[in-house]
């Protein structure tokens, strides 16, 4: 893609800094040395993910490229880039803030939707993000009832959070707008396989995710930082 310098938003970085609550800063110090990418676990397994390029595009104000990219959603949040950075740039926070900005532009909602259940069904309902539920049949057979193991280990059969605790985090969620946000994307059950017909089941593995998440229309994301390299995710036009 031919980049047009006139498309770059020169002031983007300066305006983004205060919006990002102090989580995005020092990017202008980047030397483009590539130390981050050299140790990056995501870059080691994907052909196009590259933190260095994302920082460069942030500083140049080439926001469209960052926000519409799928690479933005490939970060592992391992903080390895921060731990080696000679300029102490905390890149994982950039990704975090960028993802919020990308969602604002309508990208990546299908990913968020996949995770929304953790908040709605586990975190806010039980106060615990990861429940005891097992789906993997092997694990179910192998481990059996987790509450039995808990009892043997001298713990109560179930870890519970008191009703007051749950009420309080729900209150926080309501007050901070998290509940409203979840309602916005919670309208459609994306991953309901219990209702799908045989015909749907056949197409299942090749069917792209729906473009609407709840009330929000999602945009396609692109491999903006390099071609997918014949990976199965890209098809010929």
């Amino acid at each position, binding site marked *: 893609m031919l980049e047009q310098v006139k498309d770059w938003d020169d002031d983007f970085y300066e305006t983004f800094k205060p919006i990002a609550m102090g989580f995005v800063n020092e990017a202008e110090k980047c030397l483009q040395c590539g130390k981050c990418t050299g140790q990056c676990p995501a870059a080691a397994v994907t052909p196009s993910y590259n933190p260095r390029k994302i920082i460069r595009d942030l500083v140049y104000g080439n926001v469209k490229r960052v926000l519409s990219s799928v690479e933005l959603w490939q970060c592992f949040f391992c903080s390895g880039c921060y731990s080696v950075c000679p300029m102490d740039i905390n890149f994982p926070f950039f990704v975090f803030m960028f993802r919020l900005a990308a969602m604002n532009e309508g990208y990546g909602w299908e990913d968020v939707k996949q995770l929304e259940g953790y908040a709605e069904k586990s975190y806010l309902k039980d106060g615990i993000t990861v429940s005891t539920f*097992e789906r993997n049949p092997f694990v179910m057979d192998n481990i059996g009832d987790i509450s039995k193991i808990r009892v043997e280990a001298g713990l109560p059969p179930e870890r519970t959070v008191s009703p007051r605790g749950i009420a309080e985090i729900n209150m926080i969620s309501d007050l901070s707008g998290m509940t409203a946000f979840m309602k916005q994307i919670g309208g459609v059950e994306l991953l309901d396989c219990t209702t*799908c017909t045989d015909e749907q089941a056949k197409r299942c*593995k090749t069917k792209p995710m729906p473009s609407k998440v709840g009330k929000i229309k999602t945009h396609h994301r692109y491999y903006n930082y390099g*071609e*997918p*390299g014949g990976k199965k*995710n*890209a*098809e010929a*036009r």
Partner: protein
Amino acid sequence: MRLRIDEDGIRNVVEEAIGKSLTACLQCSKCGGGCSHSEEFDLTPRQVVESLLDCQDQNVLDSRMIWLCGRHCSGCQAVCPVGLPLNDIMAVLREEALKLDIEPKYEQPSLVYHKFEHCAKHRGEGEASESMVGGETQPA
């Protein structure tokens, strides 16, 4: 994708054929910058040379670049400050690719990312799924 740098590549074949060392390349990007077709390419001439020097043969031979570049145009080699014969390099690479039965590629792949395989029910048994219906297997 992490690349492993080795020494034995087709770099030597290319250098022999053009009678010049690829190390002369300054990596100045003048070739790609001035190219009117670079939008269609996956690699620029500069990246081809760099990849050859790193002996990333597979990357180069699998690229579209070698089939698209250096056929009806010599814009890049005209501006190259060290005079690398880029058309000849591409010709040699095409020959090498044909020797290895690599199909020519001209089509640009779609860069749209599609998310598939979202249905948990139809994955093999014994696998955890990414699905969220009713709970989860993997915590994160």
